[in-house]
């Protein structure tokens, strides 16, 4: 399975754009406050394969490049490391992180980064469902290399346990920290979260 996530910065007409995205099969939700470079609207499509994505792409791009959209960050990816703890979770918060691992790194270090990221949920039970994927096609501010999606029961799970757990700040974060010698990820990120009202990662 593949997915496309688009984070849209709007300059008007939210309702019409929202409807247009949904009309093309996206789950759409308003991005919540507390995001960082996360846009105003988030839209997620699932595709059986790349061909299905290529067929849908022109219509989607027409919206993303159309009236009312100031800018969009996009990432199309094959589903990577997936975990489901809470099947059918539809009332929670879905968080999207676009990151660009563009600091010089060997394939071995990149693999280490990915393995450590994928283990976050093991240490942080507040992450109910998750998906960590390499990007196939990116658009927007940076050539995003990875998409990290997590579902929490509520925003408290994201703001509290997720941020407070030492696996996060004392271990994983060094890849994101220019003060650490392992620094790997561009400081520009898209950190976005929203309540879709439907199950995204365990549908």
């Amino acid at each position, binding site marked *: 399975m593949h997915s496309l996530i688009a984070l849209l910065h709007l300059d008007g007409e939210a309702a019409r754009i929202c409807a247009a995205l949904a009309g093309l099969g996206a789950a759409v939700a308003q991005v919540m406050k507390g995001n960082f470079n996360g846009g105003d609207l988030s839209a997620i499509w699932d595709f059986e394969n790349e061909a299905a994505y290529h067929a849908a792409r022109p219509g989607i791009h027409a919206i993303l490049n159309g009236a009312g959209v100031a800018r969009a960050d996009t990432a199309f990816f094959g589903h990577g490391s997936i975990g489901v703890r809470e099947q059918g979770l539809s009332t929670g918060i879905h968080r999207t992180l676009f990151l660009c691992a563009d600091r010089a790194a060997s394939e071995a270090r990149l693999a280490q980064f990915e393995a450590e990221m994928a283990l976050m949920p093991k240490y942080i039970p507040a992450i109910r469902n998750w998906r960590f994927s390499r990007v196939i096609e990116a658009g927007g501010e940076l050539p995003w290399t990875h998409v990290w999606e997590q579902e929490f029961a509520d925003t408290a799970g994201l703001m509290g346990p997720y941020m407070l*757990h030492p696996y996060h*700040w*004392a271990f994983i974060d060094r890849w994101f*920290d220019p003060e650490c010698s392992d620094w790997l990820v561009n*400081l520009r990120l898209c950190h976005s979260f929203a309540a879709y009202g439907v199950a995204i990662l365990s549908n």
Partner: protein
Amino acid sequence: MGQTVYLIDDLLAAPGKGRELLAAYRERYVPGGVARGMTLEKVIVSPPVWLEEASNRLTILWTVEGPGGWWGQAAQSRYDPAVAQFWASIQDLVVSRRRHFGAADADVAELADA
């Protein structure tokens, strides 16, 4: 939430550059760290004699209060170009450096239960 969290800078100076490295760190890094809410607890020089031909190791312990204190300093340092500039500026004074984050072993269980 109030556990002491350590930020440890482990700097292996370039041969003969230990004293210059420490001076640069004290002059151009410490004030900013303090301003970001960090407390400088210790600077240990190993061996405690400035070597001219070999490397001194600097073990620098900072503390902050809990994960909140940790994120507090990180949120400030990450987007402060002066911090990145400092680390770039000392590149020729170090053989290697590592920063790691820890806590007293007695606090591990409580922290990891977050």
